[in-house]
């Protein structure tokens, strides 16, 4: 089993998480007190209307931002009191991000993009190359190591981003609308990679507003106006592998 898996123990544990944005005199409450626990090995999809606080929640869980109130334990560690630099360390070691807009460095090849997170963990150049190449192979891009983002399709770019998210062997993979810029077939392929990684033990938390995408997860949480509205298991789970076979047959 992959060393990054820790099924059973809670990976994410938030209690009454509140986030209030202040813009001058106006206060916007993006999160109104969210308590959510995600166990190791889970695959959860966060759904909800635009503006319901999904991204705000992901940013807090991803240690990119600090909550106004409430507590957050990541792998049992309270990250509430950590400094900016300590949060950066947590991000680099325990969390992998996948964004809607890929967020790859332009004019930089796939290998170098994937090496980026290791640069900040003091990993030697030779190990960086090897691990980056392995991660790219894992997402099916072993033959595109030296392509720059401009030379890759959207789906391939997102795979590079996934490889980058995996390369430091995180315990939690966060993806905010990872299929938002992709066509439906490519979306299914990307979801297939997430499912594969989750089967290997990685905990995945995904934001999407599309029901068919969310059905690839094992659990769905729905946000509304900054509050948790619904939390249910996926009853008829879609498996990317089968969908692709079906499509090929049709």
């Amino acid at each position: 089993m992959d060393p990054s898996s820790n099924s059973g123990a809670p990976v994410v544990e938030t209690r009454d998480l509140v986030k209030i944005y202040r813009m001058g005199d106006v206060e916007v409450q993006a999160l109104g007190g969210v308590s959510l626990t995600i166990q190791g090995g889970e695959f959860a999809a966060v759904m909800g209307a635009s503006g319901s606080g999904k991204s705000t929640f992901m940013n807090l869980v991803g240690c990119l931002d600090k909550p106004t109130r409430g507590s957050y334990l990541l792998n049992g560690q309270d990250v509430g009191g950590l400094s900016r630099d300590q949060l950066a360390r947590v991000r680099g070691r325990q969390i992998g991000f996948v964004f809607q807009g890929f967020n790859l460095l332009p004019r930089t090849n796939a290998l170098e993009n994937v090496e980026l997170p290791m640069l900040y963990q003091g990993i030697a150049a030779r190990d960086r190359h090897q691990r980056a190449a392995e991660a790219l192979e894992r997402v099916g891009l072993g033959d595109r190591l030296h392509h720059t983002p401009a030379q890759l399709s959207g789906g391939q770019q997102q795979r590079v981003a996934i490889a980058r998210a995996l390369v430091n062997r995180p315990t939690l993979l966060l993806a905010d609308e990872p299929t938002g810029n992709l066509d439906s077939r490519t979306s299914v392929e990307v979801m297939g990679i997430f499912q594969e990684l989750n089967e290997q033990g990685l905990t995945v938390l995904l934001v999407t507003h599309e029901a068919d995408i969310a059905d690839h997860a094992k659990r769905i949480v729905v946000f509304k106006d900054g509050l948790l509205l619904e939390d249910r298991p996926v009853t008829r789970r879609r498996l990317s592998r089968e969908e692709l076979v079906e499509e090929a047959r049709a």
Partner: protein
Amino acid sequence: MNLLASLRTALRALRKNKLRSLLAMLGIVIAVGAVVATVAIGQGAQAKVAAQMASLGSNLLMIVPGSIAAHGVATGAGATQNLNREDLTAIERELTTSVAAIAPINRTGAQVVYGDQNWFTQVQGTTAAYLQVRGWALAQGEPFGREEDAAAAKVCILGKTVVDKLFPDEEHVLGEQIRVKHVPCKVIGVLAAKGQSSWGQDQDDVILMPWSTVVRRLVGTQSDAVSTMMVSARSPEAVDDAQREITSLLRQRHHLSETAEPDFQIRNLAEMQNAAKENTNTIAILLGSVALISLIVGAIGIANVMLVSVTERTREIGIRMAVGARGRDVLFQFLTEAVVLASVGGVIGLLLGAGISRWMASRFDWPTLLSPPVMAATMLLAGFAGVVAGFYPALRASRLDPIEALRFE
């Protein structure tokens, strides 16, 4: 992030925007190039002055009329007539153990004519001892002797430049009659060519004539006043003895009391060298301040480009922070970029400066001297300028909020 990795990252970032990187370092290139070239030229000139002073002979002394006041201002030097041929003869006769040779010098400018050629040059009235004191040799002919001096004979020895001007086509110069300020003179010798001095002065543009010929016939006076005496001591060690003995002999001859200011000055080589050094030091300080200002301008150029670069790469900074870069990693990255810019600019400037000084040396026969310590110091200064220039932009980059940076378009 370790040093090698950040260097590589910096180089990669700078390569991605070659034109901007070039423009950013242009100021530093020019600053370092200017410093290296000017210092090379300055030091070359200084070395040549020193060499020339040394070639005058370390045993040289100059005696000029006039007194030195306490603060070193000569009172009426030149106007006074308190050095004469009698003094010279006395030194020559009495101080034979310390003094090897002594020559009087009275100068005047004069128009010289041969056929339809004419030229304005400097005429030095002196004796044959002058050649010995200066260590000059004749390319042709013979020097004048005591008889010619005593008789104010109409003879002359020409420098190479004067020969070239008056006799452009002729090979045969000795025995020709030229006119010096309407005085017809026979050419009895030609000086060996010496070339330019470090001041750019043509040392061959000169005529030597017997002292009395210049004073009696060209200047037209019966005065015995000598405007300068050039003395060479028997050896470098004998210089101090010579200076002391000449001082006491002249004081005695001029009837000066123990406490009276001397009415003449004796300058030795060390003093002349110090004066020259002082001049070159002033020039060095001037060059240094120009260099500093241009380095500051170069640093501002780098700071400017780095600020633009940080704004443009906000998203990149957000990505780096999201994958684990700490504030100090980002700070270090941009600082490294600024230092690399400044150092590469410094190296290019160094090559440029060295090239310019080489070219000056060959094209204008101007002495230049590339000094490794100065080049190293300039490079260090350029690197330091990079640190200073890069610090504020890098600090700004390191303080960006990762979420906002990621959202930046």
